[in-house]
């Protein structure tokens, strides 16, 4: 049913195969002058390659690598790198052009016919192959010695465990890491960069600042910390907030703090548009409304940016009122997002 009838095609091909078209001689085949000309052309191409290598060597040795030149289209560019590259490009390109021109004009251009055979082996060979395999398996006696077969299967099944286990020390288990940041109740907000504590008055209405949690003296801030702790402070007029009472109490005099790590895929949400009060992630264009606790108003992010509750300490510096109440950054299986 599913096999095509090979004979049915005969009727459909209406024309007889006229066979290979007659060979047409090239000019270089019949005219010695043209052949001589082609030979010259090939040698000119090869010579151009040699010129390219000379340019390359000259640029490498004699053009200092901080030489800048002005070129009309490129603007100011590094002469050393440019001429080095052009020299190399010439040296390689013209070898190729020479070889191809040589092949096309002077080497024989008679098309040759070779014949195919079916990929499938003939039946005799196939039967002999099957017999050999059966014979070999019989000699090994696997079928007759089930104990060997079963223990071999067990051994082969288990041997793969070792290399997998060896990979265990690639890294620690995540434990509760992804749910925690360095923000604690009372942690001061410090500028990034600069590590200076800030007062509410340091941030004007309409202003934005990136902050990190203050570390005790001696503790070094790693990129892993920044990847979890980065917070964006934004100050707007307090009456512009559209928040419930609890979230409003997490702000301070119009200053609101969000995790800067996108809730979608962890990029830094760095674009703040003052007029609309929208935060935009440059990676996938998720857009968050600052006045509504970073609610997602566009794009693929499914959750708002986590908000950090802030207040001021006795010296008037901004501090975290409490740690983040949810995991920052992209989602993961064990994340409790209720």
């Amino acid at each position: 049913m599913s096999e095509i009838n090979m004979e049915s095609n005969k009727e459909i091909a209406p024309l007889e195969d006229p066979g290979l078209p007659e060979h047409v001689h090239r000019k270089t085949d019949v005219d010695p002058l043209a052949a001589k000309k082609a030979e010259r052309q090939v040698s000119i191409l090869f010579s151009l390659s040699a010129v390219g290598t000379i340019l390359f060597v000259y640029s490498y040795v004699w053009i200092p690598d901080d030489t800048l030149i002005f070129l009309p289209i490129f603007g100011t560019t590094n002469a050393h790198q440019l001429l080095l590259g052009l020299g190399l490009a010439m040296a390689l390109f013209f070898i190729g052009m020479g070889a191809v021109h040589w092949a096309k004009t002077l080497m024989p251009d008679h098309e040759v016919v070779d014949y195919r055979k079916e990929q499938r082996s003939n039946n005799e060979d196939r039967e002999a192959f099957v017999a050999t395999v059966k014979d070999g398996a019989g000699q090994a006696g696997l079928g007759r010695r089930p104990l060997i077969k079963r223990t071999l299967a067990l051994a082969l099944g288990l041997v793969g465990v070792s290399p997998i286990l060896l990979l265990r020390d690639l890294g620690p288990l995540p434990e509760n890491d992804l749910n925690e940041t360095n923000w604690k109740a009372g942690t001061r907000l410090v500028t990034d960069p600069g590590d200076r504590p800030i007062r509410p008055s340091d941030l004007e209405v309409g202003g934005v600042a990136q902050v990190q949690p203050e570390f005790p003296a001696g503790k070094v801030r790693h990129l892993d910390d920044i990847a979890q702790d980065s917070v964006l402070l934004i100050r707007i007029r307090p009456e512009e907030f559209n928040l419930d009472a609890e979230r409003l109490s997490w702000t301070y005099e119009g200053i609101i703090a969000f995790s800067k790590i996108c809730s979608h895929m962890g990029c830094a949400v760095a674009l703040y548009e003052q007029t609309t009060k929208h935060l935009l992630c440059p990676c996938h264009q998720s857009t968050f409304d600052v006045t509504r606790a970073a609610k997602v108003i566009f794009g693929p992010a499914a959750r708002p940016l986590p908000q950090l509750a802030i207040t001021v300490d006795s010296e008037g510096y901004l501090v975290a009122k409490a740690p983040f109440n949810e995991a920052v950054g992209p989602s993961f299986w064990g994340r409790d997002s209720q």
Partner: protein
Amino acid sequence: MSARERVAGGTANFIDERTGAAKWMKKTLTKVFPDHWSFMLGEIVMYSFVILLLSGTFLTFWFDPSMREVEYEGSYEPLNGIKMSAAYASALHISFDIRGGLLMRQIHHWAALIFMAAMVVHMMRVFFTGAFRKPRELNWIIGVALLTLGIVEGFLGYSLPDDLLSGTGIRIAEAIIQAIPVVGSYLSYFIFGGAFPGEMFIQRIYAVHILLVPGIMLALITAHLMLVWYQKHTQYPGPGRTEKNVVGYPLMPVYMAKAGGFFFIVFGVTAFLGAVAQINPIWIYGPYNPGQIGAGSQPDWYMGWLDGLVRAAPPIETHAFGVTISWNILIPGLIIPGIIFTLMAFYPFIEQWMTGDKREHHVLDRPRNNPNRTAIGAMSLTFTMVALINGGNDLLATHFDMSINQIMWFSRIGLIALPPLAFVITKRICLSLQRADREKVLHGRETGRLVMLPHGEFIEVHEPLSPEKAYALTAHEQLPPLEISGADSNGVANPQGIKGKLRARMSKASQEQIQKPTAKEMLELEDGHH
């Protein structure tokens, strides 16, 4: 005998007496390769792979794959005194303090882009001409594996310099890993050696980028070429070209000179691009810092369509029983690409199932003569193109002053609506082209010359096609659809049920053709019934 001939003969004798290679070499050197420009696409892939190996080896001599923090001191003034990873500092060192270093970095990056682009175009050629059909299905699957590995390899490569742009790419990859249900966060902690970004990642992907993946690719490319060699190359239809022969030029000397020369041309063009076209200027981005980002962050183009899918995803997550499933990441980041690459790998077998054609094919199809396949290809390309456009939606918005929200909505709808549209349009175009071929064979080529007949009628002179041309236009076969009926004559339902019906429909769709001129029609034409 000249001295040169004596040396050559001596060498050949030495090798043959130890390996018996003469018989094999004799056959090999006269191996026939058909000639067509589209057969060079695969060559470009192979040559750019060689360029990647050469330029990449050069770069390893100075690159330091370490995330150890160092303070930059070098020729690039604006970054002096800035803290960064040793990897980034050494990439800057290669760019500014090694003569030819920047050139080699740019050649390496350009070669990677050409490698991927040539691979995609080569694959399109193989797909649209049906070169993947039996016996070449295995080589198609190897090709799909190489494409997948190429995407991974390219991503790892541009992630190595540890600049702000590439670090952002790694962050996104980490989020995809982390989103995998159940094991995601564990996988991420194993891969990164702890919390992101950690201090292990660059040295780990360095080993994968310069050894593991290229090693596998080299093995696959070798197998790919051996199969091409062993199965002999396909050829386009034409007079004298049949399923039983292969017509072309012998390896020695014509093909060796052409192919060898072409390697130098590809290398030369890549070097030219490396010289004049700046690519991935990492010193502008600065070192990676997870708290910072550059506007207009873009992956390389072969990742761009995946990023575009991620951008277009609707914001859906499932929260239940204390766990989170991020459909907005899983669907565009893993599920859709998984489906696409699986379907792609199995396409030769899917087509065999649809058409019931399990014979060997060595003569290529003209794309128009297989409208269904061509339409499927156009549909897939349309999907990928819309995704790619959406991957650059921020750049489109800023360059053309458009609304990013509108581009996003265009893409979301377009990803679903445009591929089927492309399918229908392509199929109609193919059938129209078949109709045009039919006209040409039966009535000749329109010459554009108008002649006034004695009685005043104007006609356009048609010139009959040469026998070669007419043969080329009619040599393809047109298979009848499979006969699978829903019910037999007694009204008993086909035991194959829905599967059978589906197959019958697929077969009918894939065999939709304009009847090419029949022998009878041709005879009538010769008898003068114009």
